[in-house]
């Protein structure tokens, strides 16, 4: 039983980590917290839901569409909104993304009602994998695998490609990056886009087993904030480990104290860790 809880906690951890990586990337490169991150996740879930309901597309067929769509939405969010406020003093950029998140959430309620919706059939629905004493739902397994693949892709892109190198340089020192001939505006827009693609993938995977509703992104973005703070702001590896820790904490907490207390355990662990390491586990 305990093994079962641990396994499902770790699997969810990989999914949470992917959401958090999207968030931490933007913070690391441009020192902005994107409060609309969870709403991008929600749009991805609805994309999968509507493609499933209206066009009978399997979520795994819709996944690349959702990822691309959220990439574009996030890219345009930078170009249209963030670009204008990024150098403004104080909380302007923060309030802009906060406003955007409220707007998207309300728009979703207006267009699609607050009802819970479900994607009831998919390639993986209702299937289970048995490994000794551990039984894992195939949707959760697929979500974890998909998240790991996306995480590796993002990591590879940042570390090994020319654009990734430009993103790193811009994150470290914007002015000097410009002196290298890097168009930092473009880097920022691409960073927003990649962040969007992360939640695009995560949202599509989560839609196979979580309900879809206008608030469905809010909880996961809150968890993502905790993970980002836990792992160290702007640190991708930190977000990965943080995600797994939070996934585990949630599962074990729910197991030990009942599901209504699982988030209390999550936040308790967070509070404890930042007492010891205020900048997060991997913060410098």
């Amino acid at each position: 039983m305990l093994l079962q809880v641990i396994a499902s906690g770790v699997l969810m951890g990989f999914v949470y980590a992917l959401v958090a990586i999207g968030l931490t990337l933007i913070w690391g490169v441009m020192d902005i917290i994107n409060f609309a991150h969870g709403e991008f996740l929600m749009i991805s879930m609805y994309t999968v839901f509507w493609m499933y309901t209206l066009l009978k597309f399997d979520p795994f067929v819709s996944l690349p569409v959702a990822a691309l769509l959220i990439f574009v939405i996030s890219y345009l969010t930078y170009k249209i909104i963030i670009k204008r406020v990024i150098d403004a003093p104080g909380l302007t950029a923060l309030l802009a993304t906060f406003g955007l998140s409220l707007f998207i959430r309300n728009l979703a309620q207006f267009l699609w009602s607050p009802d819970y919706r479900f994607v009831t059939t998919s390639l993986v629905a209702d299937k289970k994998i048995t490994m000794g004493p551990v039984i894992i739902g195939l949707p959760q397994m697929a979500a974890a695998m998909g998240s790991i693949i996306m995480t590796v892709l993002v990591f590879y892109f940042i570390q090994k490609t020319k654009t990734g190198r430009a993103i790193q340089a811009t994150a470290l020192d914007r002015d000097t990056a410009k002196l290298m001939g890097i168009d930092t505006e473009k880097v920022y827009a691409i960073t927003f886009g990649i962040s969007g693609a992360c939640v695009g993938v995560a949202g599509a995977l989560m839609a196979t087993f979580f309900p879809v509703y206008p608030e469905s992104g809010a909880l996961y973005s809150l968890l993502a904030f905790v993970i980002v703070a836990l792992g160290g702001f702007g640190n991708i590896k930190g977000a990965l480990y943080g995600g797994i820790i939070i996934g585990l904490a949630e599962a074990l907490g729910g197991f030990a104290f009942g599901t209504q207390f699982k988030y209390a355990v999550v936040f308790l662990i967070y509070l404890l860790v930042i007492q010891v390491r205020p900048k997060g586990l991997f913060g410098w």
Partner: protein
Amino acid sequence: MLKVKNLSVGYDNVPVVFDASFEVKEGELVSIVGSNGAGKTTILKTLSGLLKPFSGQIEFLGRRTDRMPAHEIVKCGIAHVPEGRRVFGKMTVLDNLLLGAHTLENQDEIAGRLKEVYDIFPRLKEREFQKAETLSGGEQQMLAIARGLMSKPRLLMVDEMSLGLMPILVDRVMEILKEISRQGLTVLLVEQKVQEALEMADRGYVLQTGRIVAEGTGKELLESDMVKKAYMGM
């Protein structure tokens, strides 16, 4: 090659450089000297597009660059080695150099540049995969210059390369710059070390509190009473 006319520039609408005019001709090594806070760094930042002039014109190879974004100016052929080196400490020496070649597309050309700068700075080759922050100050300065050379510039601008280096290292780096200049690259040097900078320069300008107060060949300036009094305690 580079012509600056009546340049005024500063921060937050407060000018710190007033009505500066100067030029750099193809193949020259030109020094702009002046003490702390004179506005030397401000001028270089404006030339490379990090700051926008309040008024005045900048022309490079016949093109107006004063309204161009910084990354376009690099493509025109200006490389700026910033004050304080500013290497990307968390990245490897090789990554730093490749970033310097960001504007080049052709892989063979990049490999060729890399070989050239490694020939000039063999120490960097040995440290290729080391993080830049683990290099010594002198090595970091060499990396900063090498990174500037990677973009295949027509004009190399170097800000205060002597900063924080032991005198013996200052001589070494200056020697390297002189050699680079002898091989035909145009160099604009900005320095507080007035004597050294003017000794190696073809021509120089003296900047005092944001104004150019003297110009001439390096030798003329070194022998002028103004420079002797103000900068060499004579």
